[in-house]
Each structure stands twice: as structure tokens, then as C-alpha cells.
């Protein structure tokens, strides 16, 4: 009970950031190396796409966002060890709720502010009215 290794080995679920139950050191290092390789690949692609003339220009912002989301997924899986296993349900649910709030905050702000901008009288007309 006092040994944290036994605690981890005996428990049915895994904390975020924790190793999976039957992971040897080599397997865990390979996991981090895989994550590092994928992250480098995605980052390099992002920087390449941002500066290149080889792709259709209007597609670049979408491509950058998709690459960033993919890299966040890679980090979550290989570095933070968020998995789809039944032992990780609590962490995944908390993450899903967090993502919902983040989408609401960013999307909602942009939507509302764009709407306000659209409906606001141009500044020079507003000045005229105050005279």
C-alpha cells in the first residue's frame, strides 16, 4: 500500500499524465519519441505551409488550424496520456466539457463582436450626430 507502484498497478484507472498499466520503460520512451516525431512533423508542416506559395493561398488558414488541432491531439495522447480506454472516462469527460466551454467562449465572442461591428453606425456618422 505504501509503494506507489503497487498503488498504480492495482488501481483500475489511470490519472492524466500517468503511464498505462503495463508499460515498460522502453515502451514509454518509445511513446514519447513517437509523440515528439509526430509533433515535429506537424510543426514543420505548419511553418512550411505558412510561408509557401506552393499551395492555394485561401486554404492556408484552414490548413494551419487543422494542423494545430492535430498537434494538440498528438500532445494529449502521447504526452498527457489521455486515452479512450474505460479507465480514462473521467479525464476525457472533463476534457470534453473544457473543449465545449472554450468553443463557446471563442466562437461566441467572435460571433457577437462581428455582429455588433456589422450593426454599428460608421464612426464619422456617429460623430456628426453628436454635433
Amino acid at each position, binding site marked *: 500500500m505504501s509503494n506507489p507502484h503497487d498503488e498504480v498497478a492495482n488501481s483500475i484507472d489511470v*490519472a*492524466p499524465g*500517468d503511464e498505462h498499466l503495463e508499460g515498460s520503460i522502453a515502451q514509454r520512451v518509445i511513446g514519447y*519519441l513517437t509523440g515528439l516525431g509526430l509533433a515535429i512533423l506537424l510543426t514543420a508542416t505548419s*511553418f512550411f505551409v505558412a510561408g509557401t506559395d506552393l499551395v492555394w493561398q485561401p486554404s492556408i488558414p484552414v490548413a494551419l488550424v487543422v494542423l494545430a488541432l492535430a498537434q494538440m491531439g498528438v500532445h494529449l495522447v502521447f*504526452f*498527457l496520456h489521455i486515452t479512450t480506454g474505460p479507465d480514462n472516462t473521467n479525464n476525457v469527460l*472533463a476534457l470534453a466539457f473544457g473543449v465545449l466551454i472554450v468553443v463557446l467562449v*471563442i466562437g461566441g465572442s467572435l460571433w457577437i463582436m462581428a455582429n455588433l461591428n456589422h450593426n454599428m453606425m460608421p464612426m464619422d456618422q456617429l460623430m456628426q450626430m453628436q454635433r
Partner: protein
Amino acid sequence: MSTIALTESHHGATVTREWSGPASKRIVTGYGFWIFILSDMIMFSAFFATYAVLLGQTAGGPTGHDLFDLRNVAIETAFLLASSFTCGMASIAADTRNTTSFQLAMVVTCAFGLGFLVLEGQEFASLVLRGAGPTRSAFLSAFFTLVGCHGLHVSAGILWLLTMMAQVFTKGFRPDIQRRILCFALFWHALDIIWIAVFTVVYLLGSAK
């Protein structure tokens, strides 16, 4: 911790599943800290929303396209990614109770983190010197708030990293120290995730326009 077989009745069918007692302290701590990290990300989402709304409000001043140096950002990104990897190595060393590897991996993580902060500090200083400080326009205020807040988190992470090195040095790999190392690793990896959003939204999209 012995395994208990539970028998329950679901709509007439009898289901037997195993229950090995309440989750260990390590799992509860990790879950709680994960909730904190998510709340931190929600705070960052508010800064991102502010930045996105104020992106065009340059008050006649410089835009991101005029200001950002992508080579500098690429090096910062590489530093943070490398530090995330060495932080993972430190977690493995902590779990195997290898003090030398742990301290070594933490020193390397700290060096990469400091390198990131130095580059960011140089960037901020050169922006202020060029008259593009946070007071120049709403766009630059939002930029300094968002990127500076991430930089503050990295600084706090480095202080925490040094604390963990000192605690392992004086107290060894006690279970409570191990849980703190787990939380620190979560924090450090989460900072790298936020940096992905920063370099994509602020720097790459900002200099593309």
C-alpha cells in the same frame, strides 16, 4: 487492495463486475489537477477571444505581418517541444526512482524553458524599442496580454521545476513528491499545448495576412 466482485441487477439481468476499491490518491490528485489545467485553458480561451476580436484594431500602427519574426518563433517552438519531451523523460525517471536521470532531465527541461523565455523577452524588448509596445494599439495590448500570460505560466513552471528538483534532492521520491512531479509534468505539457495555439493563431496566421 483486494478485488471485490459486485453483483447487481440491471433490468432483470444479473451483471457481475469487479471493483478494486476507491481510486488511489495519485489518480484523484491527477484528476483534480487536470480540472485545474482545463480551467486554465478556459482562461486562455478568453485571452484568445480578446485577441481575435482586437486583431484588426491597430490604430494605424503596425500589424502582425510587419512585426513578427517567424524564425525566432520556430526556435521558441523547438525549445518548448524539446523541453516537453525531456519533461516526459523526467517523469519516467521519477517513476523508476532514478535520481540522477531525473535531475539531469529536469536540468535540460529547465534550460530549454529558460531559452524560450530569453527569446520571448528579446522579442518583447525589440517590439517596445521599435515603438510597438502594448500601449501602441488595442491589437498590441491583446498580443502582449496573451503571449505574456503564456510566458508568465512558463516562468511559474520553471520555479515549480526548480522546487521539484530541490524536493527530490532533500526528500527523495516519497509518494507525495511523486504526485507533485505528476502534476508538474501535466502543467508543463499543457503549456506546450497552449503554445501550439499561440504560434498558430498569433504568429503563423498573423504573418500570413
